[in-house]
């Protein structure tokens, strides 16, 4: 079946099987920054934004995203134009092996888009889907709080 969706701002038309999940479709199309791990909705590595909301792409039928907008971590920023969240992850030591980071950053992006001034508890709740076995979470929470402050400063300029 043919579906169409906007991926990181680019309109894409794809042929998918009815039981394909979004994770496999994105990776098959070259969006390798979307990571698969548990394939059961537990770990958060595959999190992407659909219409600005984080979802587990391993449990989302690709057909259900027809007509919607998908954002991966690459759509938030890249090595040339890093988003303040991405810079804050690097500066706070919030990325070690890096496998969970794409999912963690998109979850944080959704939070900051909705709530530019989150508390630490709100950050932890918004990222409760994203398992990280390297950093112990503290650095990631600090990174999101730092990025929020940076974004507020930029907004005031």
């Amino acid at each position, binding site marked *: *079946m043919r579906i169409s969706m906007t991926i990181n701002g680019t309109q894409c038309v794809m042929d998918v*099987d*009815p*039981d394909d*999940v979004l994770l496999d479709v994105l990776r098959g199309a070259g969006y390798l920054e979307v990571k698969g791990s548990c394939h*059961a*909705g*537990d770990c*958060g590595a595959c*999190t992407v934004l*659909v219409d600005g*909301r*984080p*979802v*587990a792409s*391993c*449990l*989302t*039928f690709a*057909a*259900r995203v*027809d007509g919607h907008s998908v954002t991966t971590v690459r759509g938030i920023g890249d090595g040339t134009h890093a988003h303040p969240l991405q810079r804050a992850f690097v500066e706070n030591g919030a990325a070690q092996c890096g496998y969970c980071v794409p*999912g963690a950053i998109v*979850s944080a992006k959704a939070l900051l888009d909705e709530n530019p001034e989150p508390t630490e508890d709100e950050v932890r*709740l*918004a*990222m*409760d*889907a994203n398992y990280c076995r390297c950093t112990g979470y503290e650095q990631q929470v600090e990174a999101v709080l730092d990025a929020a402050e940076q974004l507020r400063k930029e907004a005031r300029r």
Partner: protein
Amino acid sequence: MGRIVEYYRADSIEDAVATARRLGSSAAYVGGGVELVLRRNPEVSTLIDLSQCGLGEILEVEDGIEVGSQVTLAAISRSAVLKCYAGGSLALWSGRIAQNNLRNMITVGGSIGRNQPWNDLVPHLIALGAEVRFFDGAEHRTPLVSYIDAKRTGTVIEGIVLPSGNANAKGFMWRFTATQQDISLLHCSALIDVAGDVVRKASIVFAGRPGHAALYPQLGQELMEGGGSQDAFESLARSAMQAVEVGTDHRATAEYRRDLVRAAIISLGDWMTGDTQ
């Protein structure tokens, strides 16, 4: 594992039900949630998507608040209307079930329709007195607890209606999990209306064994008659340990869950007397 060969986007509930009837057991509704991906039924070869059937709104209606079946837990947690309903318990609770990326996927209809009321949403909806609106070729409305007992299949859940009579009541939730995201070993929900020292209304629900959630009117009655003293809650805890159906599975024994029933009632007492939030 079954092979899905068709993904059908229904444009109305009438269309969805007619298609499901035509295809019989080879069709399943995609109404939110993750079950169809995780546990594929080998019989199912066609999915019927309900997302374009206009079931995604939270509306104030004449006799309460209607939550469409395609509304996600995340949307409930953000709803200004629901934050004001029964002390905001449903909004608060929905923002803590499972984890963030799943809260944007799990819907009210998906939670009810999987016929496994032993989850974290359904017991609280039962305590709030929710009714289900569903369509099987004709419109129906029935208490949620009756809908679940009937284990209906093939119907489209249109939404739930939260009754308007709960303005002065507050919802209570307690669950015991091994980790935050884990499925509860035991869930207790209640709706309590207190005026001064008088408990005017108390609905107490437990989900204490797999596949089961139930309202325990006798426990609510005992709470109303006993007042809010520590002795009354001790007595209520003993009654609850006898009354609540608990079960054993590979995660916990019935005896363990019986102790959790007591912990839930003590926690309810602490909540009502202001010792905890």
